[in-house]
C-alpha cells in the first residue's frame, strides 16, 4: 500500500498542520511515512502545500508528482495542483472557496469546510474538518489515532483548542459523498 497525498491551500489555513497530524497518525499505526513541506517564502494569503506519503514499505522520494489524494482548501491551489491528481484519484475540495462543476465532479468530495468551521465557532479548524472528511473517504488512518495526535499537540491548559478540533474532525467524518 502506498498513499501519496498533496495538501494545499492558502498560507494560514493550516495545511502544514493538517499534513503533520496525518503523518503522525500514520506513524502511530506503525506505517512508513514522510512529510515534505513547501519551504520557500510562503506567506499568509499566498499558496502553501505539503506532501505526505504513507506506505507499508520504505519510501523513496518524499516528493509527490502524481497524487492518490489531493486535499485542496482554496482556488489558486486547485489550479496549481489539479493536474497532479492521478486518474481516479480522490479530490477533497473546500467548496467554500473553490468548486468543481460538470463532469469534473466525478471522484470529488466537495464540502464547505470553511463555512462548517465558522459555524463551529473557529474558522481556523476548516483544516481539521477536511481531515475528518479524508478519514471518512479513505480508511487509511484511524480516527482514534488522529485524536491521539490532537491530545499530544494541543496546548496544555487550553482544553478549548482540543475540543473544537475534535468537533471539527467529527463534523468532517459525517460528510458523505454526493
Amino acid at each position: 500500500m502506498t498513499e501519496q497525498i498533496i495538501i494545499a491551500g492558502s498560507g494560514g489555513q493550516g495545511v502544514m498542520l493538517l499534513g503533520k497530524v496525518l503523518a503522525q497518525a500514520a506513524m502511530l499505526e506503525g506505517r512508513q511515512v514522510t512529510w515534505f513541506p513547501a519551504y520557500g517564502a510562503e506567506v499568509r494569503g499566498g499558496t502553501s502545500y505539503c506532501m505526505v506519503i504513507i506506505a507499508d514499505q520504505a519510501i523513496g522520494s518524499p516528493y509527490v508528482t502524481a497524487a492518490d489524494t489531493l486535499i485542496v482548501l482554496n482556488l489558486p491551489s486547485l489550479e496549481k495542483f489539479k493536474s497532479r491528481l492521478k486518474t481516479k484519484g480522490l479530490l477533497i475540495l473546500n467548496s467554500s472557496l473553490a468548486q468543481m462543476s460538470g463532469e469534473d465532479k466525478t471522484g470529488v468530495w466537495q464540502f464547505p469546510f470553511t463555512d462548517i468551521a465558522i459555524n463551529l465557532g473557529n474558522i481556523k479548524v476548516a483544516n481539521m474538518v477536511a481531515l475528518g472528511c479524508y478519514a471518512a473517504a479513505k480508511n487509511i488512518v484511524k480516527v482514534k489515532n488522529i485524536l491521539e495526535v490532537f491530545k499530544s499537540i494541543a496546548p496544555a491548559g487550553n482544553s478549548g483548542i482540543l475540543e473544537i478540533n475534535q468537533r471539527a474532525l467529527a463534523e468532517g467524518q459525517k460528510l458523505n459523498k454526493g
Partner: protein
Amino acid sequence: MVKTKILLSGNEAIAQGAIQAGCSFYAGYPITPQNELIAYMAKYMPTPPGTEAPRVFIQAESELAAISMVYGASAAGARAMTSSSSPGISLKQEGISYIAGARLPAVIVNIMRGGPGLGNIAPSQADYFQATRGGGHGDYRLIVLAPASVQEAYNLTQTAFDLADKYRTPVMILGDGILGQMMEPVQLSGRKIKTGLVKKWALSGCAGRKPNIVKSFFLREGGLEEFNLKLQANYALIKRKEERYESFFLSDAKIILVAYGSMARIAKSAMYQLRSAGKKVGLLRPVSLWPFPQQPFNRRNSKVKYLVLEMSYGQMVEDVRLAVNGKNTVDFFGRSGGGIPSEEQIIGKVRKIYHENI
C-alpha cells in the same frame, strides 16, 4: 507493540542527535533550508544557570564568526558544532582549514541547496567536491558522512562527534534540502547526554601541568612538513578504518546504481521497480563520502556496469571512476539547480544501458 517513535525533520533530528552526543557548544547563522536546525538548537541547547554541564548556543553575526567560535570552543575542549547551507558553508572554509590545521575536532553540517553563487533554496548535491576535496586551503581532508533518512541523520550526527574526537579532525554531515526539510519517524536512542569528556590536549587551564599548545602555524624549517606527514598518517588510518556504505543485490547485479543521500532513496525505488521487471540491478550507497568506500568496487566482474546518479552534473562520479580504475564502464545521470532525477528517468536510463550492452 510498536516502539514509540517521534516525527522529526532531518534538521531537527541532527540537532537532537548532537545534543544527545554531548554537543556543548553550537554557533550558527540562519539560512534556508537548514533553519530548523539552528531553531531547534536555540530552543534546546541553553541550560539553566548553575547547571553542572552547561551548554552554549550562539546565533553569530556571520558564518565566519560562527566557525571561528567553533574553532575556539573546540580548542577549549568543547564538543562544538556549526551548521549552514551551501553559500554559508563557502564562507566557513577558512575556519574549517584552520580547524583541520590545528588538529581540532568539530562537526559541521551542510544542508545543500542549489548553486553556484546565491543559487536557490532547492535541494542539491553540488557541494560534493567542496566537501570531499577540502574546500579550504592546504592538504587536509574532512570525514564526510551522508545520511539518506531522518533516522540516519540522527544516528550519524552522534557518530560524527565520536569520530571527530577519536581522530581529532573536523567531520562534515552532508545532507540536502530534502533531507533537512522532510519529516520521518525517528526512534531516539537511549543514549544519555554525554558530559564530562576530558581532552588531554585541550586548553582547559594549565595550573599544575605543562601548557598545551593548539596552533596551525609552523615557522621552524621542516616543521610544517613534519606536521603534514602526521596529518597524512591520520588520514591514512581513517581511510583504512572508516569506509561506510550500504549495498543491495551487488552479487547478481549487471548494473549497479551508485547514489548517496536523498538521491539514493530515489535510486532504491527505481531499483526495486526494475528488479520486479526482471532486470538485475543493484545499488551501492556510499555513507562515508570521504573516505570514499573503495572496498565494494574491488574484485568485481569487469562486465558489471555502474550508473552514478547525483543531484549535480557529476562530482561523485569521479570517485567512482577512480575506484574502478578503468576496469568497469561508468555511466552518469544527474540534474542540478533544483532539478531532481525522477524514478522514471533513472529507469529509462537503466533500460537504455541494458538494451545497448547486455
